[in-house]
């Protein structure tokens, strides 16, 4: 070995040491970049669309102005990337790589993150926790609050009021029988009554969820969620009820033809696109659907498209005589959680995001807030209706796939689509769920 290469080795070794030292520092300081009092708080959310993206940036800027020395690094990511890749990888990497304030999903999802020790207990923020009331339940793990929802609402049936009128439906159906009559009337008037994006699985599965919460008692649902044992007979019954309801209609009804090739949203040929183009009359979907439909109305402007005037909303009707709690609804929301080693300023930022002032302005952008009093900001009559429906629901059950976690969720959704549009049986749904639970 000549001298030149010896020097090279020494240099490499020195660099290696320096890198090791640097990374040692980084992991030692556990996240917050506290050099000379300056702190950077990273905030990841899924509000990639407008006006939400600018709104969160505005909120971050206001917080920075009130807290000299604090920089808020706010970034929006596409929902699935954020949920499945970015956040898990960042949490796994830990230290500075992990965001400080980020989206957390309810029940099964947040539980996995809590068990891995990534989330800070937010129970200390008593005022904030109290201000959201019952909406926060889904983010409570073993009596401790790990996420605070800033948006929360129940799903319902979005419908085209013009087409309802043309079909001679004067009152919104209050029972499942009336709902069935409305479907027949719509079909007779020449439109496709209900659109469903069964290609993506979950939009179809929500129909079964609705039958499940209307067929199973509150206690059965609670027990199933706790034990992940789905042997209760009501889960089979839910499928039987759904299937016999569907079989009561002719041909493809109540849904559009070939639903298994229809995606959920985002593209013109999706179920949301069909509703927007007025080729279907109804769709069962969550609160975000208003914005989704607005975007897909043919000829809609790219910036802040207005929701079409005919777009109306009603809660899913109750099934007469069913064992489920009357007035039970399915819903969930989006929440913020805090990384375990995040700087304390993150908690202040979360408090600010959840303040009545910010939540009221959030509501004014066309969202459903969680903080009591902020609903005053809702101007849109349809959203007001959803907010009221959420408050009035006797029981709000989190989306079943979120509640049981993605593994059981996927198996359940596959089996449901198979029951609705393939050759599956009602029994196969709880069977598939139990089998998936065994792999956890």
């Amino acid at each position, binding site marked *: 070995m*000549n001298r030149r290469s010896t020097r090279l080795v020494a240099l490499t070794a020195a660099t290696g040491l320096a890198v090791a030292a640097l990374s040692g520092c980084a992991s030692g300081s556990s996240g917050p970049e506290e050099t000379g009092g300056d702190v950077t708080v990273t905030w990841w959310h899924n509000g990639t669309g407008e006006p939400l993206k600018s709104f969160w940036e505005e909120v971050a800027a206001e917080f920075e102005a009130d807290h000299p020395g604090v920089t808020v690094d706010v970034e929006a990511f596409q929902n*699935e990337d954020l949920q*499945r*890749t970015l956040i*898990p*990888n960042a*949490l*796994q990497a830990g230290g500075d790589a992990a965001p400080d304030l980020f989206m957390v999903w309810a029940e099964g999802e947040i539980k*996995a*993150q809590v*068990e*891995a*020790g*990534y989330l800070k207990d937010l129970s200390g923020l008593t005022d904030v926790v109290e201000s959201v009331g019952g909406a926060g339940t889904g983010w409570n793990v073993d009596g401790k609050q790990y996420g605070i929802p800033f948006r929360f609402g129940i799903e319902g049936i979005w419908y085209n009021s013009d087409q309802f009128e043309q079909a001679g439906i004067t009152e919104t159906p209050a029972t499942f029988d009336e709902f069935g009559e409305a479907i027949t009337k719509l*079909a007779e008037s*020449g*439109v*496709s009554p209900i*659109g469903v994006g*069964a*290609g*993506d*699985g979950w939009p179809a599965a929500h129909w079964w969820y609705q039958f499940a919460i209307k067929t199973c008692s509150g206690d059965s649902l609670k027990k199933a969620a706790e034990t992940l044992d789905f042997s209760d007979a009501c889960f089979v019954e839910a499928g039987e009820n759904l299937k016999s309801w569907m079989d009561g209609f002719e041909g*493809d009804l109540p849904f*559009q*033809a*070939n*639903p*298994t*090739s*229809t*995606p959920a949203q985002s*593209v*013109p*040929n999706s179920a949301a696109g*069909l509703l927007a183009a007025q*080729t*279907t009359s109804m769709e069962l979907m969550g609160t975000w659907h208003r914005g989704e439909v607005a975007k897909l109305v043919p000829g809609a402007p790219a910036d802040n498209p207005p929701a079409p005037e005919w777009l109306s909303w009603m809660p899913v009707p109750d099934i007469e005589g069913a064992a489920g709690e009357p007035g039970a609804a399915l819903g969930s929301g989006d929440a913020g959680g805090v990384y375990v080693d995040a700087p304390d300023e993150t908690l202040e930022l979360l408090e600010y995001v959840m303040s009545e002032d910010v939540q009221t302005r959030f509501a004014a952008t066309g969202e459903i807030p969680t903080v009591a009093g902020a609903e005053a900001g809702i101007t849109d009559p349809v959203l007001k209706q959803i907010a009221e429906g959420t408050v009035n629901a006797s029981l709000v059950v989190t989306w079943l796939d979120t509640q049981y976690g*993605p*593994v059981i*969720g*996927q198996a359940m959704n*596959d089996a449901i*689509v*198979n029951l609705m*549009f*393939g050759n599956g049986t009602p029994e196969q749904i709880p069977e598939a769920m139990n089998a998936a639970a065994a*792999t*956890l």
Partner: protein
Amino acid sequence: MTATETTGPAVSAAGPAPAPSTRRRNRARAGQRREVALFAGPAVIVYVVFVLLPVLLAGYYSFFNWNGLGPLDRFVGIDNYVRLLTDPVFHTSVYNNFFIIVLSLLVQGPIAILVALLMNRRLRFRGMLRALIFVPYVLSEVTAGLAWQILLQSVPPTRWGPFDTMLQGIGIQDPPAWLADPNVVMWTMFGILTWKYLGLAIILMLAGLAGVPEELYEAAALDGAGWWKTQWYITVPLLGPTIRIWAFLSIIGSLQLFDMVWIVTGGGPLNASNTMAVYMVKYGLNVSQIGFGSAVAVVLFFISLFIALGYQRFALRRDLEGSLTGGKRT
């Protein structure tokens, strides 16, 4: 060997010198090593970091029940593999990959050769035709997939979409549900893939045809061979290396098939169009079962490796002589 001898450094090493000839040879060998390291080093590093290491890590993860969060502490042995190999949904996925491989070889290959033979003759608008045939290959997978999805959809309240209406215009009254019928969907996928990748096959075959010496055709013509006979006995055998390489690319592409299926059907309807890669994303990554997903990746890796090595050993043997197998030293 002769060229490398001059590349050694011209500095003399210190210490007791061995016999001059050995020393010179040692120095030459060191120089050669340095050269190899310089040229191959970056590629080796990239290969190790982005290929070998992930493969080994996936192999390691596949023995754990791991959701991607927290430490790897739930060792489950071969449970993931047992679950995978007994899952009928995975069986369908493997079947679908082989369905595409077999159909590609049996259908796309002959069509590509025929079209290439045709295009190799003097034709009017030949340049334009070649460009048109190649256009689908240039389109991005997502764009092409979405376009097909829109063409093949059903528009309520009818069962038909734009593509069906076109078919009805030419008298086919009751076309199948292209993307919604589990028995039809893989044929539809194959149709879309053929539309997309036939252009590449044709261009490859045309390049192969350009390498067939003109004299052979002249000789065949003098011997009185007709056009078909000439193609069968001269062109096709001489196209052999091109056909074998195309078939190899086609097999590998079919084994890795993901994006087109993901965009057009997402593996549906009712899991009828899953491929191994789609299955891996759906039941591994998307449900946070990283250990199980890794097991799928390992199985996919071994199936691909086995087929690729087998193909190289038996089909590409002559074509690759000397480049991979060491060959004759000169």
